[in-house]
């Protein structure tokens, strides 16, 4: 990914302020601090080194110790007065403060929540007027119906233990499995456990509200250094089936909450929704919930699948004499 110019500019200016306070820092330490590669640190220093006031002669430029750099250490010699730390813009203050408020709610009054609240107070004081805009934003707490399960998962994550799950999938299959927890993720609405599943021999994502029971095992979780966490609550849509739905305008709310969906307005006021679906059982559920708000599904085999599931529901009512 190519870094944006505002991102790099912000970092280079922040780096000058940081280097003023931290003389003779090893390149690796700067890289670690700003979460960039050592090569990028050198590239930034080299850019700063040739930057300065018009004229751009020696004495106009930001200067570093060449000797130190040869030894892998960065020492700022002349900052050209560019060593003031930058204040937060209103947009930056709002984005961080609202994220912190969401975190505070997600942690729900625990020890972490008070640390978050403390951080909010420090940040607000530093942001000044820029923080006031954040007052206009309210965030909702994730659902609370999963607390005991989420707590056990968090305990296993911090102590590095394996978990035993009893889980019901979107297709209503109940399974038992041992998993090594990797991450507990929330999208501010639901919680998800990302884990290495010993039964599937791969990384799987579990919705916490579908975990029927979870036990922390007296077994250490295996390390999984090769696993790259996507950090996304949505499943990987690369292997998804493309499904096209025609929805009534009343179902717009549903279409709008789907990440990666394409919504087209049809001439008669209906909507066309195109979406990549990884788990067709999920699609069955939402289509049955929408009922008459859906008037067409493509491809036909997907339409037949969901239709037969609805028919199975009707048959079950008939069996019990409820229709």
């Amino acid at each position, binding site marked *: 990914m190519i870094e944006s110019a505002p991102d790099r500019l912000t970092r280079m200016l*922040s780096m000058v302020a940081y280097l003023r306070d931290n003389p003779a820092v090893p390149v690796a330490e700067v890289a670690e601090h700003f979460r960039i590669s050592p090569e990028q640190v050198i590239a930034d220093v080299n850019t700063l080194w040739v930057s300065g006031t018009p004229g751009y002669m020696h004495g106009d430029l930001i200067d570093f110790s060449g000797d130190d750099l040869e030894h892998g250490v960065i020492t700022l010699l002349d900052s050209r007065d560019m060593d003031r730390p930058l204040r937060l813009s209103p947009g930056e203050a709002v984005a961080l403060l609202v994220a912190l408020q969401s975190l505070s709610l997600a942690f729900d009054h625990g020890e972490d929540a008070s640390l978050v609240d403390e951080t909010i107070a420090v940040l607000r004081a530093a942001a000044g007027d820029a923080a006031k805009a954040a007052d206009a934003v309210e965030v909702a707490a994730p659902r609370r119906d999963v607390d005991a399960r989420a707590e056990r998962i968090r305990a296993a994550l911090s102590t590095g233990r394996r978990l035993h799950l009893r889980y019901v999938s979107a297709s209503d299959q109940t399974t038992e499995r041992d998993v090594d927890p990797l991450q507990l993720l929330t999208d501010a609405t639901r919680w998800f456990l990302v884990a290495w599943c010993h039964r599937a021999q791969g990384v799987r994502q579990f919705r916490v509200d579908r975990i029927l029971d979870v036990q922390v095992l007296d077994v250490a979780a295996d390390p999984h250094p090769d696993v790259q966490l996507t950090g996304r609550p949505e499943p990987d849509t690369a292997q998804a089936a493309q499904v096209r739905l025609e929805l009534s305008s009343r179902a717009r709310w549903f279409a709008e909450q789907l990440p990666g969906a394409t919504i087209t307005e049809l001439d008669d006021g209906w909507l066309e929704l195109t979406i990549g679906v990884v788990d067709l059982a999920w699609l069955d559920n939402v289509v049955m919930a929408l009922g008459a708000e859906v008037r067409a599904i493509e491809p036909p085999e997907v339409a037949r699948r969901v239709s037969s599931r609805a028919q199975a529901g009707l048959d079950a009512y008939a069996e019990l004499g409820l229709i």
Partner: protein
Amino acid sequence: MSERVDAAERMLDLVIALSHTRHRMTKSEIRAKVHGYGTNSSTEAFERMFERDKEHLRDLGIPIVTLTDAVHEDEIGYRIDTAAYSLPPIDLTPAQMGVLSLAAEVWQDSAFAGSARRGLTKLKAVAGSSTTAAPGVALRVRGPDPAMSDLIEAIAERVPVRFTYRAAYSGETTVREVEPWRVHARDRGWYLVGYDRDRQAQRSFRTSRIVGKVQRVGEPGSVTIPEHRPPTPERVFHTPVRLAIRPESAAALRARGSVVDSIEGPTGARDVVALDVSDVEHVADEVAGYGHSVLVLDPPELREAVLARLRAVAALGGARS
């Protein structure tokens, strides 16, 4: 390297030049003297580049001040006041920096993601090390829609706004004039709450349905935001419901009620689960989604609402109902 990287170097030289200029620099001086601006073949290309850089710097909290000179009235000059852009003293503990790192990763795919990332970078200028907060726990939220930054700014400055809005049900667009009060996130969506001047009442607008730009239509300070925030109403649970649920399924529904009985059917036993609900239509959506796993015993209006959904969907595949 790409052009984007060059832009960072050019803006860096612009910031240094404009914060060192004794009084001000005019556009022609900038074009002639500041590294990176002289390469433009045309004045138009230079103007575009300079305007874009000015906009970027404003977003970063490094505003360029415009000055006119008594002697050269027609030529505008520019400078940056470094004192105005510095961060006040801030003392962040390693644990608090850990929390901020977690916060900077919350937003996905939106302007908020970039803003949070840059905000964290600025704080790193004055912070020491950080410790990992809440290991293994992460919050990922779809960031607000493009209109959000303009709306938050308008609320902060108490300015009325006008925008084109697509109605949820009809899909038709109308132009709305609103006194913006606050925004809130709910169920994976973002909403603006304010006073709708045409409807003369409080209204809520889903920001993803705002089409195009948000315009300001009044003076800063001309909006009065009501002091009292009405608390979110407590849910009233009043309709008793009995469901027949297959063993092990519908954990979320079971968690909200209790098993009171069990019944035997031709295809196996089902638990009878009793719970109270507040909104029958909402529960009908949820129950219908479970298909044959969850059946409604009572009340009849909930059962009919679920059956209507199942019948409509059964008809989609050409299956007989």
